């Protein structure tokens, strides 16, 4: 018996030491490795990335944001969670929703009383997948956790701190551990505010280049070191070619000869008094020549040394209602004097005597034409001079150069929206692929811009989504279907009964819509 037990013990020991299950064979899922990048998609950025349009954010717009369109094209719309806001939506100005377009007029948004009651999807137990906060700049992406001190309710709405540990946009993106990050318009709000406020000062309304570079680098480094995510980012389109800035550019500028020094005359384009169809008014009564009346502006060649190049959208309603920028008879005297001397051929003394009366009758002519000669110059906050435009574009180009450089060195696929957008603007009313860059007054059917003149409309978001998808497909060897842009057009047709016509804007509406995007330093002043 003993030997049997011993044998048993030895055999047991042998089995324990020598027997092991074989390594199992690795099974394969029907997933191509390159599809793994689509496992978990997160979007970071600011207003455009959140779906903000027409000065506000609401569920309808959010479901037409480019990240959501991209998720839908990937077949992942159901898992893509957003901080949905019920109608009427939350606008830039507390208590009002986004702008409306009715009967050809842009109107302020509908009121709401309790913003908290509008928040759907509030109890999602993790950060949202679209973590974009309207109004956020690069510094905010890295460091801002809530709405304290910045007057921007969207930080609270999107980030929901302190429930999420007082984490910023980037920190919440890291916590989700995405496989793909859509980074929209990095640094857009670091330069946009200058265009919106007509004030281009590096360090006040424009982030200095060095700060932009270090913050962008920090965002990309954080995502690349703390997650395994691929990043796809865009550059920044030229913010001076959006309707908010350029709406009047192609219509109301006429060349004038200005004597800048004794014997030195230059020809400069100046904005002139115009009619309801945005056409310059010719006040010449002789029928032989043209008399255009330049608008009064605070900024300009004579005052700030640089001619006005753009007049901003909020000016329109003030012009239509109050005659902002329309000279009165006193302001018209010098113009009339020049006209009498150079065109009519009077001598200076006669011209000097006659000018006031002529100016008065010219003023009467403007009143008869339905204009309001207020004599109030357009303030600098509503104009961009050539110098200011150059400052903006220099900074913008510097930002885009950094974006291109970092995209290259860090292996981040780049969506060149700067070029694409320039192409679309250059295409004018013909547009591209069924959309145009015209303002709603000129193209309510297929404009890529919403009512505030710089955020994209549904068609604009679809345009962005398509460009991102093209880059994603090329970079990762995928075949995500592109959205059809014409599926997203027609958004404003109901606002123009009877067809296209140039519309009007209720005074204050545009100012209300851009409040969130005025740089804090400017707000403080």
């Amino acid at each position, binding site marked *: 018996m003993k030997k049997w037990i011993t044998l048993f013990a030895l055999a047991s020991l042998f089995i*324990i030491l020598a027997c092991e299950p074989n390594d199992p064979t690795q099974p394969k*899922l029907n997933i191509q490795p390159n599809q793994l990048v689509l496992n*978990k998609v997160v979007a970071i950025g600011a207003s455009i990335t959140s779906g903000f349009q027409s000065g506000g954010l609401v569920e309808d717009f959010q479901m037409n944001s480019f990240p959501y369109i991209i998720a839908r094209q990937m077949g992942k719309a159901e898992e893509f969670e957003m901080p949905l806001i019920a109608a009427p939506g939350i606008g830039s100005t507390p208590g009002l929703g986004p702008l409306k377009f009715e009967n050809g007029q842009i109107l302020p948004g509908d009121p709401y009383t309790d913003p908290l009651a509008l928040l759907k999807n509030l109890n999602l137990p993790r950060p949202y997948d679209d973590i974009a906060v309207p109004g956020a700049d690069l510094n905010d992406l890295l460091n801002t956790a809530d709405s304290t001190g910045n007057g921007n309710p969207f930080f609270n709405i999107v980030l929901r701190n302190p429930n999420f540990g007082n984490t910023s946009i980037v920190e919440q993106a*890291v916590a989700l551990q995405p496989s793909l990050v859509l980074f929209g318009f990095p640094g857009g709000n670091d330069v946009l505010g200058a265009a919106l406020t007509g004030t281009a000062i590096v360090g006040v309304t424009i982030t200095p280049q060095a700060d932009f570079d270090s913050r962008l680098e920090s965002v990309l480094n954080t995502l690349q070191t703390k997650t395994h995510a691929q990043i796809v980012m865009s550059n920044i389109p030229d913010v001076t070619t959006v309707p908010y800035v350029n709406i009047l550019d192609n219509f109301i500028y006429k060349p004038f000869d200005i004597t800048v020094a004794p014997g030195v005359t230059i020809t400069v384009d100046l904005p002139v008094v115009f009619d309801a169809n945005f056409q310059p008014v010719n006040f010449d009564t002789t029928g032989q020549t043209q008399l255009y009346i330049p608008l009064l502006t605070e900024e300009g060649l004579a005052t700030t040394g640089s001619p006005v190049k753009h007049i901003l959208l909020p000016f329109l309603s003030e012009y239509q209602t109050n005659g902002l920028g329309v000279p009165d008879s006193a302001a018209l005297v010098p113009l009339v004097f020049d006209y009498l001397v150079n065109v009519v051929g009077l001598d200076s003394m006669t011209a000097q005597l006659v000018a006031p009366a002529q100016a008065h009758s010219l003023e009467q002519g403007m009143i008869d034409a339905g204009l309001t000669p207020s004599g109030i110059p357009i303030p600098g906050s509503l104009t961009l001079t050539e110098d200011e435009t150059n400052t903006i574009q220099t900074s913008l180009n510097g930002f885009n150069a950094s974006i291109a450089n970092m995209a290259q060195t860090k292996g981040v696929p780049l969506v060149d929206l700067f070029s694409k957008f320039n192409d679309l603007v250059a295409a004018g009313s013909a547009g591209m692929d069924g959309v145009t860059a015209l303002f709603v007054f000129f193209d309510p059917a297929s404009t890529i811009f919403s009512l505030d003149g710089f955020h994209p409309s549904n068609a604009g978001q679809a345009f962005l989504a398509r460009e991102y998808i093209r880059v994603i497909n090329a970079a990762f060897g995928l075949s995500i279907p592109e959205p059809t842009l014409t599926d997203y057009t027609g958004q404003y047709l109901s606002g123009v009964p009877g067809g296209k016509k140039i519309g009007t804007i209720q005074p204050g509406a545009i100012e209300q819509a851009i409040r969130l995007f005025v740089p804090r330093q400017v707000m403080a002043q």
Partner: protein
Amino acid sequence: MSKFTLTLVASFLWASLAIGAGFNIGEFGGRSAAMGNAVIAQAYDASTIFYNPAGLGFLQGTHFYGGVTGIYAQAKFVGAAPVLPNTVYNAKKQFFPPVGIYFSHQFTEKFAAGIGVTNPFGLGLEWGDDFPGRAISKNVDLKSFYISPVIAYQISPNFSLGVGVDVVLTTVTLQRNVIVFNTEGVPGTGTEVGDVVLDGNGDPAIGFSAGLMYHSDRVGVGVSYRHSVSPEFKDADANFTIFSNTDPKIAAVASQLLTDQKGGAKMDFPGILAAGIYYKFTEKFGAEVSYAYYNWSVFDKINLTFDNPDLNQTIPENYDNSSQVRIGTHYEVTENFSIRAGYIWDETPQPIESVSPLLPDDTRNDYSIGFGYKAGKITIDAGYMFVDIGERTTIENGVGKNDNGFNGTYNSRADIFLLSFGYAFK
């Protein structure tokens, strides 16, 4: 040949991998195990208390039976491509040394009673800290103790009936890593912040068993039934640890949510209906074939509850009823010495969706051999069973089926060694 020559080791096998499909443990005696547990129709020793209480009706005198079992369990895992790398992870090799005991006593000619302590359901599986499924299960240790008093009545010299009560005590430890901010259904998302250990003792659950056994000189027929029980853990301790390398802001959120607290769990163990036929071909050689049916469909989920209901979790299991076929043979070499061999085909109740790091099961082929020695009142039995669980994958036609989205292939085996001792008082 005496009916009670051979004694079985009542092994409390804690490890499910080896023991029965699902987490059933069926090996309670050196002889029984050696014979592939095909002992429904035979009553050799007090361990019949577990296999078929009616067998007690044929067991004369007073018996003790007890022994030592060693279960050596091993498991490996490789994740599915392309989501997981081609790396094989080994579960910690575990050795479970359960014990089990039986006493029986014949009070009158026709009436006998006994008590046994068995462990028919148990589970133990621990993975390393780097195991990719660690947020599903890192360590599980389930032990169930069935304390079974049984009485049996000999209706006629050939026919016996037995009934018993089971008092079931269970302990469970579940440990897994905790991930916050994950996206449901998408593995690899969210932030791993720490781990949770849930430790509990179940409230005693009551079940019952019953059986019939018929025997003649050459033939034995038996039917036995053990009813399902549902142990409930009401006052379990849930202890959370936040890992020190967690991002401080996320750790702050996690610490608020994951505070040490009380928790609870509920699960359902199946009932077993078994029937067997034994035939003594010659004086020296006999064999039994038996069939067992487990109503595992009662095990549809494990409910975990916490003081903070946000942490509550329901783990779907959706087990299917399953079958087991056992064949056991013995050969009496001499009057004192016999050898045995057996085979079990053990169908897994676990559907593909539930194959997980908690318990990766598969239909098993178990092969057993053993021997026994009897001298006077003493019997010694030794047995070995190889439980060949084999490979089980969560992928079907290239599609991952696991409920948590954690897909791959497991390969497991268990080696069971049994040594038992019996004493017949009269």
